[in-house]
């Protein structure tokens, strides 16, 4: 009973945190009256305190404000790239899953070749082709996530296609198109939606990683990976400049993972 409450508590706080981050991304000004670019030479490297809950950076900018404003890019890339990868993945994966065996075989070889590479390296290679930049980072992490979605979408399509209920629908004389629309696609989307919730976290980390390496947005854009990178040379004297953006990424990803897992468990519980 207690364990259940504790699990619930974790889930609730994770969901709440996600909501807060989403609001930050949409309306950062609710959280802070300050402009994220405003410098103040009299307030350099202030440690966290009343005026500046997360302290200030080398040009006296409020770290809290910058972290808040950073949510929009990180979350935007996370959600945007994941959504794009999801949509393309579902379309391609479902088509491949429904296609004749030859097409399926060839397509999956291709996807497997892509899957042979670590996601982060694919993103890096994509940057090598596209060149650095904030938009390109989003494209790169989306491309990197794509093969996994195609694969899962195809696998789910195959599972659903061979499932008892699709056979039952067929046995009732239902048209294949209607079977696809009313059974295959919705049931394929469900697990993918769950995976995507967790995938947002992966994408945020990957995008932040690229920014950290200097391949994404440039200073003074507030972006978590970049903020973190900006603080790396200050570790000895001003830990807060790097710490809070990093903590923010971690918490966001943890929250997305917790919520995603909970959704997955709900789904799997239903299945068995």
């Amino acid at each position, binding site marked *: 009973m207690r364990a259940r409450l504790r699990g619930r508590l974790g889930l609730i706080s994770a969901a709440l945190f996600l909501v807060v981050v989403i609001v930050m991304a949409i309306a950062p000004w609710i959280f802070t009256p300050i402009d994220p*670019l*405003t*410098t103040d*030479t009299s307030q*350099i490297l202030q440690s966290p305190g009343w005026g500046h809950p997360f302290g200030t*950076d*080398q*040009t*006296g*900018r409020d770290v809290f404000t910058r972290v808040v404003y950073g949510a929009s890019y990180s979350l935007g890339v996370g959600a945007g790239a994941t959504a794009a990868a999801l949509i393309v993945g579902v379309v391609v994966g479902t088509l491949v899953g429904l296609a004749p065996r030859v097409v399926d075989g060839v397509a999956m070889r291709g996807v497997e070749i892509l899957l042979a590479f670590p996601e982060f390296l694919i993103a890096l290679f994509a940057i090598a082709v596209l*060149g*650095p930049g904030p938009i390109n980072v989003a494209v790169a992490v989306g491309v990197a996530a794509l093969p996994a979605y195609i694969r899962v979408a195809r696998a789910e399509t195959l599972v659903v296609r061979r499932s008892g209920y699709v056979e039952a629908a067929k046995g009732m004389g239902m048209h294949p198109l209607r079977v696809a629309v009313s059974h295959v696609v919705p049931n394929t989307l469900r697990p993918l939606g769950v995976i995507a919730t967790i995938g947002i976290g992966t994408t945020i980390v990957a995008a932040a990683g690229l920014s950290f390496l*200097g391949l994404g947005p*440039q*200073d*003074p854009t507030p972006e978590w990976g970049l903020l973190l990178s*900006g603080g*790396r*040379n*200050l*570790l*000895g*004297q001003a830990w807060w400049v790097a710490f809070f953006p990093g903590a923010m990424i971690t918490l966001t990803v943890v929250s997305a993972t917790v919520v995603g897992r909970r959704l997955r468990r709900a789904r799997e519980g239903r299945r068995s």
Partner: protein
Amino acid sequence: MFSRPGSFRIAGSLALVVSAALVLAGCSASSGAGEKVEGGTITFGVDVDPVGHLDVHSSQLDINAILQRPVFDSLVSQTPDGTIVPWLATKWQVSDDQLQYTFTLRDDVTFSDGEKFDAAAVKANFDHLVDPATESAQASSLIGGAYYAGTEVIDPTTVRVSFTQPYAPFLANAASVELGFYSPKVLAEHANELKAGGPGISVGSGPFILSKYTPGSELVYTKNPNYNWAPEGATAQGPANIDELDVKILPESSVRTSALTSGQVDVIGDTAPSSLPQIGDGFTVTPTESPGVPYSLYLNVTRPVFSDVAVRKAFAGGFDLDAAVKAVFNDSYQRAYSILGPTTPDSYDAALEKSASFDADAANDALDAAGWSERDSDGYRTKNGERLSARWISYTPVNEDNANLANLIQDGLKKIGFEVVHDQLEPGAYLDAYLAGDYDLTDWGFLSADADVLRSHLGTGGYQNASHLSDPEIDATLASAVATTDTSKRAELYTKLQQWNAENAVIVPLYVPEYILASSKKVGGIEVDIHGWPLFSGAYVTK
């Protein structure tokens, strides 16, 4: 070259003429606290891996100049006060028309692979560095670029270098490592491998021999036991004292700092000003102001926004540079007032100091007067519905201190209603924008030991003339300065140029970068040259 926080020398790579004089036997950067020991090893932490840029004749990297100095000797040497002293050349003679330099060479010098140093070796090296196949930009411009006519062997110990026009910086440039000498055997046998470099390829006649190179990690130098041809007057004569010099590549400034404080390395270069408080008292810190053009903003006078001198001056005085420099550099670097650094030999105009100050009211008034009197919804000034906005392009990666400074400048100008859009472009995109002139301002600092550096920055068509200035009077002044070796005459001409810029605000100097060397008290005898770069031939470790 793109590595130093203080001097962002993007355009150095675009150089036609750059002077970088080096100095041996400069000021001592360290004095050991204990008893001097024979032999031993000194470890030196640097910021950049010169991988792929190890050819002294073609490399444009500062780090290469620092790391190859122990291996390569030059004809002459320059002391920190600018005096040229004999090195591999015992004496030299300049013809009256100043078009021919005749050097008399030492006859006891050998390269570390046993080859003899002689006039043929000088010719082979100079021929190599101007050979288009070498793809040299830096060294070929140091030797005079288009002014260079050729080198001829008179006899084994006499060599003559000729020019098409008088070229005053040549002697100073001849002291640079870029005009140092490879063993002729290497040039003959390994010409294609010089850039990759390494033991057996980076072979010179210097006090140290490169014995191991692990890209990304370290370079190891062992002492040259036969070395006996140090520059005249140098404190360290004969072979080096230490047996080995280990160079560790540590790109993060915080990492370098704590590597020093934790004893992992003995000396670090390019120390970040912000980390000085961390280093503390137990260490020797040697900052050296860099000669050449300070870190500056170059306003493009061909663009509408900066074609008006009043706007330029309002721009220059519209933000609190003193506070910004202080905030970013923690009192380490000084704010710049002139387009030449105070340590640039025979040229600096100290009268300009404290001449300019931040005055928001004056800037506002000037902009109002210039017609930029309306404000838009974002608070920026407008004229005829056009926002007062300037596009600032920077070459990436932008080092952190400069990025912070840029933020402060942007934010300061925003307060007087002047928008600055800072586009940080990757090299290819930057170059496209730069060559197309599609920008209002850009930034860099330009390290040079000769004031002739201004010729490429202000002269019509100069490759570093980011301001697109074209003024016959300025061109004439620059031309007469490069054609004379009379130091007082040169100083007078360069002072005129510095004052002209102060009046016209074509270049907005921001701060004077420094090369900060920090070393442990366990080592001593390290000297620095005019750039502040360390020289290890006299260095020692203590008990």
